[in-house]
């Protein structure tokens, strides 16, 4: 059993609340990513699971054992640290073997398991070297090999790739994901890199100010952010936010962006009615808009200020009222700075958010309120 359940966890440092009443269940064999800006409590939460920092209140249950007050060595977990924490006075072999030696495993078993772990990370030729003779990427591999050698069902990772250069990170990302999936371990992975989170996680928990804002599959977090913060934090470029106003228009409601009226989906009509006449924020991803070079009645007219060729796409910047909007288009689409463009907003790609709270307004919001 390698399910992890955290219930009502609270951790304070003086007056600063690092974890604010967090509850979370990580399923067996799941790859869960804790994502958030620095200081959001993601590392504190991971350390609480590892036993490296005790919670002020709440509980941590691993499998069917309450480990809240157990020291790290009794929790049956394994961990990869941000700065690797490879022991510099031990050879690579002894580093990888460290956990097994502490478990007093027989010598030949240790040798086998170290060899296996080293092979999985392609460092089997370096076992009798000292870590100081190795590069950052190789040290990273030692740290991972040490973590998997103990064959613990749970591996915790604290920003393991943040010290690698961009190319190496890209390579390790895919390799780690494959490795951990194959091993069938439960992984909790802390990162502030939203691309890492998107690409690796089965689920992402987006954290801010000690709370989990949204816990969902990467694509759902990306497409349906729960609030403006999540939409803005995830995605490159971040989600566009445009300020408009809800207006009654015949039988239903529309959102006015200057002269242009955006037609929301039918199931949103009742909940938008509650915002009649009030300001509202619409969120749309840069790649979700459909640009046109000729005027369309159901499209928002913009003037392009900047065109940034990024190779696989071109990124356009335009102003709408006080808001800036980024549009990502196919590089073959002919457009230069100063051109007029008409942007269509596909009805199912638009998120509506409360202008005051930043929370998404959905059909479910109406059900909850009704």
């Amino acid at each position, binding site marked *: 059993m390698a399910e992890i359940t955290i219930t009502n966890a609270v951790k304070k440092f003086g007056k600063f609340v690092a974890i604010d009443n967090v509850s979370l269940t990580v399923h067996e064999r799941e790859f869960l990513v804790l994502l958030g800006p620095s200081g959001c409590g993601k590392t504190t939460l991971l350390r609480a699971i590892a036993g490296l920092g005790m919670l002020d209140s709440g509980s941590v249950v691993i499998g069917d054992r309450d480990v809240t007050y157990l020291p790290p*060595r009794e929790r049956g977990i394994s961990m990869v*640290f941000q700065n690797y*924490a490879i*022991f*510099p006075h031990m050879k690579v072999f002894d580093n990888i073997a*460290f956990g097994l030696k*502490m478990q007093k495993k027989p010598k030949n078993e240790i040798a086998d398991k170290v060899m296996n772990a080293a092979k999985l990370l392609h460092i089997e030729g370096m076992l009798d070297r000292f*870590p100081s003779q190795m590069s950052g990427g190789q040290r990273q591999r030692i740290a991972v090999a040490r973590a998997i050698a103990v064959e613990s069902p749970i591996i915790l990772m604290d920003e393991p790739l943040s010290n690698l250069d961009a190319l190496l990170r890209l390579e390790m990302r895919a390799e780690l994901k494959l490795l951990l999936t194959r091993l069938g371990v439960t992984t909790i992975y802390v990162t502030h890199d939203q691309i890492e989170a998107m690409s690796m996680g089965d689920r992402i928990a987006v954290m801010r100010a000690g709370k989990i804002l949204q816990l969902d599959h990467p694509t759902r977090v990306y497409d349906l952010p729960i609030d403006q913060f999540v939409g803005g934090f995830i995605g490159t470029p971040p989600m566009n936010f445009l300020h408009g106003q809800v207006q009654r228009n015949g039988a239903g409601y529309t959102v006015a962006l200057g002269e242009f009226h955006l037609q929301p989906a039918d199931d949103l009509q009742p909940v938008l009615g509650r915002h009649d006449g009030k300001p509202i924020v619409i969120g749309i991803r840069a790649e979700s808009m459909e640009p046109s070079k000729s005027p369309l009645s159901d499209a928002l007219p913009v003037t392009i200020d900047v065109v940034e060729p990024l190779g696989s796409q071109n990124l356009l910047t335009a102003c709408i009222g006080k808001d800036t909007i980024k549009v990502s288009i196919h590089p073959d689409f002919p457009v230069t700075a100063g051109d007029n463009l008409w942007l269509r907003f596909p009805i199912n790609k638009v998120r509506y958010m409360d202008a005051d709270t930043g929370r998404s307004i959905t059909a479910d919001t109406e059900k909850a309120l009704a």
Partner: protein
Amino acid sequence: MSAEALAKESLSRPSAQAWEAQRRRDKLLLQLRRAGVYALAILIAVWILFPILLIANMAFSTPQDVRAFPKSFFPNPISLDSINFFLSTEGIIRATGNSIFVALLAVVLSSLLAVPGGYAIARYVFPGRDAIRLVMLSVRAFPIVVLAVPLAVIFLQLGLFDQPFTLALMHTALTLPTTVLVISSVFASVPYEFEEAAQVFGCTPLQAFWQVVLPLALPGIAASAILTFVLSWNEVFAAILLTLSNRTLPAHILYNLDKSSDPFKFAAAFVMLVPSMIFIFFIRRYLFNMWGQINK
């Protein structure tokens, strides 16, 4: 490019000869600077090694050669007379034994106290930590003479005198402020993440300290051991104050110095030198070996 532009370009650049001359000057300057560094290093080495050579030279010369002038650079013939005479002098062997015992005991005691003390100062925030650090540092500001007298008074009152053991306590007390600070700074340089990693992989906090932190702190412990050994080996004031029949070597030599001949003095100086050099020779392995690995 037009001919005119080419001409302009070559005018604005230095001629090939001037270019080459400049390059040579730069190279010469670089070599001079390097030679200067070597010269300075050699000078410092000579500064330290020459007295040792002189002492060794005299110690292994015959007593006649010691008094002769001019002196040769190497003992000729090599003679063990002075050394033998010195070692066979009443009480010297015993004093040497006392000195080694006191110095080693001081090293052991000060390490045993400074390792946990230094660890606490490096790792834990506790009330009065900065005050303790300051007080320790300020103790080093007083000369040994000032510190030794009150300590000696306490030892005398307790009846703990004329024993090598007491002198070891005294030397431990004198050296402890330095060793605690040296060792604590080494502990502070060992990332706490190492201990956490060790604990995740099955260590109790004590095992994590023993298996990971202590080996990494060995250079600092070695350095402070050298400090303690040398201090204890050379310390003469407290030694004279606290002991009478159980003198350490420097105290014993100092006591006999005005009654002894020049060959005796040179032999004494050489015998004083050797054990601390042997000690440093063995400890220096730890001093240098580990650093390369700690600093990645």
